[in-house]
């Protein structure tokens, strides 16, 4: 049995890549001290989801590319989320003089 390179990129390659990106995003989301980096991690996770949607739309739904339409909506929502998130962050920074996530514990039990 010889291991030969695939002639085309398999669907699983895209899925694994998206899984790596998503897990890195989750780890960054949990462990970041800087609030801006938390927002960046959220963007990484949204991009991982988009890669999945695009891969499925290209491999399993080649004619009615509904996954691409969904990806466009995800991009729209991500843009809105980034704008509101950064505005909240600026307002928070003006009040608390820090971006350390550990010190934003006003609503924590």
């Amino acid at each position: 049995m010889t291991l030969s390179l695939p002639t085309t990129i398999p669907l699983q390659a895209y899925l694994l890549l998206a899984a790596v990106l998503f897990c890195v995003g989750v780890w960054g989301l949990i462990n970041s001290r800087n609030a801006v980096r938390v927002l960046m991690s959220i963007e990484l996770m949204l991009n991982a989801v988009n890669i999945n949607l695009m891969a499925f739309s290209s491999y399993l739904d080649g004619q009615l590319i509904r996954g691409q339409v969904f990806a466009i909506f995800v991009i729209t929502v991500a843009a809105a989320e980034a704008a509101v998130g950064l505005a909240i962050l600026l307002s928070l920074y003006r009040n608390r003089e820090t971006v350390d996530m550990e010190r934003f514990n006003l609503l924590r039990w």
Partner: protein
Amino acid sequence: MTIASTTQLICFVALSATLVLGALGVVLLPNIVYSAFLLAGVFLSVAGLYLLLNASFVAAAQVLVYVGAVNVLILFAIMLVNKKEDLADIPGLALRRVLSGAVCGGLFLLLVRVAITTPWALPGPASIGDGATIRIGEHLFSDYLLPFELASVLLLMAMIGAIVLARRDVYSSDVITGEPADQGLIEKARTPLLTGKPSP
């Protein structure tokens, strides 16, 4: 767009390496400005992957929206809040990192198992190729018309909300003397949350 399969493979491997290394850099680098620039690299390589998947419209939207708007917004936020601050040590931080790393590794193994063992219905219908943009337009103006219109309302709401949230309040009159103040010059005193001192 049809490229030779070897070229496609090489592009995929290069883009994947950029993507994974860039994502790790975004999360791990101590300097957050470098993280923001690496994030732009991650977004660009994701756009490259979309091009490999025959989705030129979404790739263009990715570059315009993510690299052009979101990343610039993040850079602005970094410039506005970039104060050197010494983060206080937290007990058990290393343990927390290891534990969350284990959780993320477990999640990754689960995703890998699902991706490999699921019998995907391959090969699906033939790819539409260059007609993707036309098909997306047909979708957006027929069966996805309501979400498309709602997206515009959502963007408007996000824009107004961001302006309201990030705006600085100014007093129209001086707090102490009561005489009208020069608009835009006097900034409202900071009202620290829960620090004990009531604001004037």
